[in-house]
């Protein structure tokens, strides 16, 4: 599966896409595949302030539960409510429709410390 090069990655398998000062966070397709059938997503409340490297959501599958880390500090401005009824969107389209939440980042440059697509692919190989 292809790892988009337009975003950054954490070793715990989150992806971070920066647009302006908004960072969209999702789970990688590799991680979704490892989890197998995803059954539930626990999302945070919009407006909540989060610190860097904080657990902000949980993705549950028929096999295991994965914690989702922030990667940047800021405020949660939107969550993907489509996942409430269709958590399998993450299995089907992890890098697009399966996004989890958006954070208005206090300091978007924090993402520079995270992995590139190439480094992430090496990490999972």
């Amino acid at each position: 599966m292809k790892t988009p090069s337009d975003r950054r990655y954490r070793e715990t398998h989150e992806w971070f896409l920066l647009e302006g000062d908004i960072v969209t966070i999702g789970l990688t397709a590799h991680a979704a595949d490892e989890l197998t059938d995803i059954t539930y997503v626990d999302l945070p409340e919009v407006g909540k302030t989060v610190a860097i490297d904080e657990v902000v959501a949980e993705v549950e599958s028929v096999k295991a539960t994965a914690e989702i880390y922030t990667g940047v500090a800021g405020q949660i401005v939107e969550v993907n409510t489509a996942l409430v009824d269709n958590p399998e969107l993450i299995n089907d389209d992890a890098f697009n429709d399966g996004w989890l939440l958006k954070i208005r980042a206090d300091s978007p440059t924090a993402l520079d410390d995270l992995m590139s697509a190439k480094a992430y692919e090496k990490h999972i190989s």
Partner: protein
Amino acid sequence: MTDELMKTPLHDTHVAFGARMVDFAGWSMPLLFRGIIDEHNHTRTACSAFDVSHMGRLKLSGGDSGALLDRLCTRNLAKPEVGRSYYTHMCNEDGGILDDLIVSRFETHWGIVCNASNREKIVNWINGHVGEMDATLTDETTATAMIALQGPRALALAQELTGIDPATIKRYWFTTHELLDMRITVYRCGYTGEDGLEIVFPSGLAGLIVPRVLGTTDTPHPVIKPAGLGARDTLRIEAGMPLYGHELSEDVDSITAGQGWCVDLETDFIGAAAMRRRKEMGLASKLVGLELAGKRTAREHYKVLSGAEHVGEVTSGVLSPTLGKSLAMAYVSIEHADEGARLEVEFGGKRVAATVVPLPFYRRRKEG
């Protein structure tokens, strides 16, 4: 682990059928083929084939083998019937569970099926208690293969494949077919909550038997589909069946684990005295079923709470594909273990309401 994983005689078939292979107790085993929920549902509605060749298959021969097993097993085996299988535990002196097993009375010997993770421990445990008795243990695990055919259509399909009507075998009985030095044993057992069979045969016959069961990748069997360990786990949780390493361990006795039905306390098996004392004193906790509100899945070690009090711990959980509910098994202190007790399960910082419900969660419809 750097050691090479052991492979079952079905390994190449799994790979050909697109399995995702994982390390399970030192064996390379299929986690899934098409998807855990798909395989789960197919087992509940039709028939799945599970490779369970990783499980330990032991043979105990000799004039004292029955007496030895009767001493080691929680179940009373003093008057065994030839052709019958018995679910039992083996325990240490403290009543702690060493393993859960199926022991089967053949005409000339006993057959034992134990968990893959406990095979070495059980072989050593049995051999360590032979002493002066006439009993010889042979480990037949790698010389044989074992396939579980499970589901409402399993028996009819097995009849189509073999010409033998497996319905003539009662639940927890078995039949054997011998040709030259080859023996095929068909047990009416399983670990899914469905009716079905477990078939043991020499590894050398895998090339003949496996394509008859599954077909080939070009022409797969129209009904029987392979299923992996993922579905095996979700199926057994719905069926309320304990799994060693989760519900069962050396830290709990068979009665606390809710398996008192396989314990004959009036017999003198190893661990009986400890379990009798435990029963007289009253259990401190026991294994219960929990039904959770909502769709979150409780995982092993999640805390069970009653108000501010920590009253138990989850051992297994599943968002039940069959029942559509969030279900879990948990050890709960005895004063909170009554059916209907209202508890909570802790998910990170959040709490989810849970009610104690009877096990099993799922019971198959019986025909007739």
